């Protein structure tokens, strides 16, 4: 079984790399698209199979060299594989009709697929990295490819967003690397890469000097927070999410942020014996509350659709931080459900931008208006996305937020949970208000929607809506499921 798991792990990373390289070999746009899509289906198949194995055998984690496949890997791999596949499928609809951009038009599509698949490969490898140092290298590797994708449109705002993303996240990851150096230097008898393995770190943590371990942990978390987009180091996030091509925005929000949050979570589990449970929890709870507090006021403002989704990412990463910080089994079940539900709902929201901007181009800069009148298919995609993200029942995010908050109360963090509940309620009202405003009213500068993009929106709504409903149905059974029990033991 270990051989099969390791083979699937290498395939999950190798297939997108191969697709990235093969997409450069042809000169025709359509052929490049075809290679990109075939590569995406293969990658999602391999990663999906690996995620299934990890979840089915969640009690028996596989560690082989730099590969670790456990329950946490399974959850995050499944999410990254699903969002990556959906993003690949909608990419041709975005790419059609693009004329000028960051890259020369003749090769722009080739660069897009190269960056897309390399970014996806790096993302898929993060949850299966068995080592803090390797995980850092992979997170850093996501930066270069995704920064170019953020600026893909070549517009001035996209250049600003891409540049800000590149510089700020690189600075953050440099600080995180300093944390890794300090952790390595403080680990007794550290000799070689294996000393940074998650298991080795946890074993040696109890013998680390407390002060140095705290410095390492704080540097590591502060640096990773920049990439996760936790407040107050989130400045790149609204810009990059709003300026990137919609399929890339979906990957950034639904896959990149949670993948790096998993590295932060694994770091907490590994270093907790040295840092102390209280300190480690406080750091996560601090980031969680700060992210909610910063995000909520923006959810009340009439923002452009993608910018609104970006601030909602900040809010949801805050919920995930709180769930990890509370550490209660119910909160951990909430984190699992939240990662999956947020990914699907957010990805759908970003994909809806493709038809939205075709018939309401001003929605790139200002809040959308009267979408329900102009394009019911796009309106239903936006409605299901924002309704779910707001936590409106029966959205899975309603259940996950309840789980996280209950976990907070049950773990003795009543004050934090109460403040979070108040902030989430305000966020809910803000998003519902934004939803009503964008659906109703007089459409401004509306053109006739294209039939093809409306069909795309309708199909995606059907698929993602069904998946969200399935998540809600399974929510009740989730806290007692084997994967969550395995996660609780691991985090324990």
């Amino acid at each position, binding site marked *: 079984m270990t051989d099969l798991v390791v083979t699937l792990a290498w395939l999950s990373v190798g297939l997108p790399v191969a697709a990235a390289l093969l997409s450069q070999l042809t000169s025709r746009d359509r052929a490049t698209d075809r290679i990109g899509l075939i590569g995406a289906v293969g990658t999602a198949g391999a990663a999906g199979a690996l995620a299934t194995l990890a979840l089915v055998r969640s009690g028996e984690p596989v560690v082989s060299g730099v590969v670790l496949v456990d329950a946490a890997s399974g959850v995050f791999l499944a999410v990254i594989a699903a969002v990556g596949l959906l993003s690949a499928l909608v990419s041709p609809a975005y790419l059609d009709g693009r004329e000028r951009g*960051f890259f020369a038009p003749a090769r722009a599509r080739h660069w897009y697929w190269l960056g897309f698949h390399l970014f996806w490969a790096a993302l898929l490898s993060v949850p299966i990295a068995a080592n803090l*140092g*390797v995980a*850092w*290298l992979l997170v*850093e*590797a996501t*930066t*270069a490819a995704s*920064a*170019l994708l953020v*600026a893909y449109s*070549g517009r*001035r*705002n996209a*250049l*600003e*967003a*891409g*540049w*800000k993303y*590149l*510089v700020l996240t*690189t*600075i953050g990851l*440099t*600080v995180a*690397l*300093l944390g*890794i*150096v*300090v952790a*390595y*230097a*403080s680990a007794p008898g550290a*000799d*070689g*890469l294996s*000393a*940074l393995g998650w298991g080795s770190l946890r074993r040696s943590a109890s013998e680390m*000097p407390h*002060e*140095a371990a705290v*410095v*390492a942990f704080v540097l590591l978390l502060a640096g990773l927070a920049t990439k996760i987009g936790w407040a107050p180091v989130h400045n790149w996030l*609204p*810009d990059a999410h*709003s*300026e990137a091509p919609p399929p890339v925005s979906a990957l950034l929000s639904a896959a990149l942020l949670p993948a790096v949050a998993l590295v932060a979570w694994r770091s907490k589990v590994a270093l907790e014996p040295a840092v102390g449970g209280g300190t480690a929890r406080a750091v996560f709870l601090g980031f969680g509350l700060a992210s909610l507090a910063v995000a909520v006021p*923006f959810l009340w*403002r009439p*923002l452009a659709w993608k*910018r609104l989704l970006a601030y909602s990412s900040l809010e949801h990463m805050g919920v995930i931080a709180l769930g990890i910080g509370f550490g209660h089994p119910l909160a951990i079940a909430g984190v699992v459900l939240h990662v999956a539900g947020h990914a699907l709902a957010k990805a759908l929201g970003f994909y809806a931008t493709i038809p939205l901007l075709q018939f309401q181009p001003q929605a790139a800069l200002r809040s959308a208006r009267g979408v329900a009148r102009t394009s019911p298919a796009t309106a239903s995609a936006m409605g299901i996305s924002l309704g779910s993200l707001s936590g409106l029942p029966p959205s899975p995010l309603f259940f996950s937020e309840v789980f996280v908050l209950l976990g907070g109360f049950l773990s003795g963090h009543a004050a934090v949970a109460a403040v979070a509940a108040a902030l989430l309620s305000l966020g809910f009202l803000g998003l519902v208000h934004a939803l009503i405003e964008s659906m109703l009213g007089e459409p401004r500068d509306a053109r006739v929607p294209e039939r093809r993009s409306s069909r795309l929106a309708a199909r995606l709504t059907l698929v993602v809506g069904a998946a969200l409903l399935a998540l809600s149905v399974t929510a009740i059974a989730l806290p007692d499921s084997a994967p969550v029990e395995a996660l609780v033991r691991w985090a324990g």
Partner: protein
Amino acid sequence: MSGGVVWVLVGLALAVVTVRRRSAAIALVTAQSALLGIGAFALTPGRSTEFLVASLALVAKAAVLAALLGWSLSGTREPHPVWDDTPPILRFGLAATLALGVSALIPSIGLVERSSEQATVALVAIGIATVVLRRATLFQALGLVVAENGIALAATAVEGGMPLVIELGALFDVIVVVVVATAFHERIFDELGSGDTHGLRGLRD
């Protein structure tokens, strides 16, 4: 690495925050990277082969970054100097104060020498200060390299050195980031006719 060498590294970083010309800043960062590589190479006797490889990679990094940044500079001549919001003396003062502050506050973090610990955090702080205080894209990219040089200094001061995979991986990553940064710099230059990031202020809420 001797205390004198590590403080020269910090001095070079402070000069990067202060100097006006981009070419001078590139020369300073190249000198800093080369000095770091040579300093690490001098430590190789008695250490592992991995450490030797890592120190040679540091020297190679200095050459690669100098070539990359110099090439990018030659293709993007600024029509007018990019004036920063803060005058040079104030930039120097702010960066030096920040560096001294973090050096004094940092507790022992397990490196071989105390001076390396202080210089490491000082370099990271000055790198961040460079990104914040300088407006030109190339200066901001140089700030990233200065901060990364701080980490490389820490890696040489770890008992036995950091694992080679991490050292080489981090070096490769910084080179890739600088390649992407120069691509951005050139594209921004095409768009604005200058590498001044103040031209990129359209995204506000």
